[in-house]
């Protein structure tokens, strides 16, 4: 019998119950399952009218590129976006969850979400999982109190910075920022600098590659520039095409639809007393 589950803080957090068993299994030779990491270069900077976020688009699974054009800039609120590095599933799940919580909060308060609210929700979640949720985030947005940029580490610590980089390509990108960043950049200068920093990560770090995504957030407006730059186009495509050797037999393929249409049952919604 479900009672009124109040919106009290969830009793979540990392559960240590299975740690001993896992260690025992590892000693016996069980290999841990592989997961999709994002490698990644993600950056953010504050310019005169707001915040610009940038990210590369390569997702890696060990030495293999799993996704050549994934989206690393996640929506949190109409005025807040978040770049994610680390385990792709973790960044997506955690940003999705906090985005949902922010939406409910907006309904209850009737106000625009603030960046510090997103920050606190993210960091308390990550801290309660003791770093096992492998999500390193660059959170940026503009709210009533002004433009804000924060970095969040998997263990739950945060920094507030005018420019920030995260991910395996962070050092390459930070080199660009440290030499060229200054306060009061215009929008075009800021976007150019962010694109440069991401390109530096793309070309100098193996874990980052493919294209550049940029997101510009200003008061009351945001522009999500997906694939702003494509510095790695596919250069050579064989014109001859591919053909099978004569020894292979290609059977006829026929696709049979299992069911033509979805049947809609009329009048299924009204309640019967």
């Amino acid at each position, binding site marked *: *019998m*479900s*009672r*009124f589950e109040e*919106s009290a803080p969830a009793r979540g957090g990392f559960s240590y119950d299975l740690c001993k068993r896992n260690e025992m299994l590892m000693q016996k030779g069980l290999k841990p399952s592989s997961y999709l990491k994002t490698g990644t270069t993600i950056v953010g900077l504050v310019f005169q009218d707001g915040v610009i976020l940038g990210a590369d688009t390569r997702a890696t699974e060990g030495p293999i590129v799993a996704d050549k054009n994934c989206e690393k800039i996640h929506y949190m609120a109409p005025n807040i976006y978040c770049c994610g590095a680390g385990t792709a599933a973790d960044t997506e799940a955690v940003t*999705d*969850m906090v985005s*949902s919580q922010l*939406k*409910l909060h907006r*309904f*209850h308060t009737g106000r625009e979400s603030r960046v510090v609210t997103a920050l606190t929700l993210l960091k308390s979640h990550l801290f309660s999982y003791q770093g096992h949720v492998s999500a390193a985030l660059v959170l940026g947005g503009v709210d009533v109190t002004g433009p804000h940029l924060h970095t969040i580490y998997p263990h739950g610590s945060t920094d507030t910075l005018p420019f920030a980089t995260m991910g395996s390509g962070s050092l390459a990108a930070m080199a660009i920022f440290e030499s060229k960043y200054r306060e009061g950049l215009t929008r075009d200068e800021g976007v150019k600098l962010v694109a440069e920093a991401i390109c530096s990560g793309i070309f100098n770090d193996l874990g980052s590659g493919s294209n550049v995504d940029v997101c510009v957030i200003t008061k009351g407006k945001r522009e999500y520039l997906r694939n702003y730059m494509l510095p790695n186009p596919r250069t050579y495509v064989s014109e001859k095409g591919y053909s099978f050797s004569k020894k292979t037999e290609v059977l006829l393929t026929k696709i049979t639809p299992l069911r033509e249409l979805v049947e809609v049952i009329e009048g299924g*919604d*009204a*309640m019967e*007393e």
Partner: protein
Amino acid sequence: MGDSQYSFSLTTFSPSGKLVQIEHALTAVGSGQTSLGIKAVNGVVIATEKKLPSILVDETSVQKIQSLTPNIGVVYSGMGPDSRVLVRKSRKQAEQYYRLYKEPIPVTQLVRETATVMQEFTQSGGVRPFGVSLLVAGYDDKGPQLYQVDPSGSYFSWKASAMGKNVSNAKAFLEKRYTEDMELDDAVHTAILTLKEGFEGQISGKNIEIGVIDSKRIFKVLSPSEVEDYLQEVE
């Protein structure tokens, strides 16, 4: 009436087959301020009286019509605090549905889930039924929809409905005035006229509240000045 011996306990049927507590809840609704809803061809309008207990109350702080999702709004008749709890739960349910299916919740689903909550409170120990009836107005892929949910948890889809103090007069008025091909603006005018029927005192933008949703699928509560404009048109 032999019922009175069974009227204290929610979870006991009376000999006549009724749950008397739910009847009492409906009475609480019936003594609440009048509210109504009308479904038009291209949208839905819901409206309510906003009579404040004293002139000293800051009317800008009171909002009876709330939105549950960007395309679904709700108004109540009965106990305000009970409606607040239901609104909070419904919003959370709508959000959970979205997280699971990545689709905005259809109006019928949200109504069903809210009605389920209200029914649970008629079959649990130590709780009482909600003392509100809700009118849920929404616009989704099936078009404009209007549902009424009662304290028992039963819900119906309506073309036009009213609840609260003036329910019989208002419903009679709506039955006469309602047409199938009504447009949203006509519906707003009809809603205002219906409220005016049983209104004590001078009607103005400050003591009624109107919420509309049109084919753009954004639910909006009209500001007092917008309500005044409609009132002028009606006169």
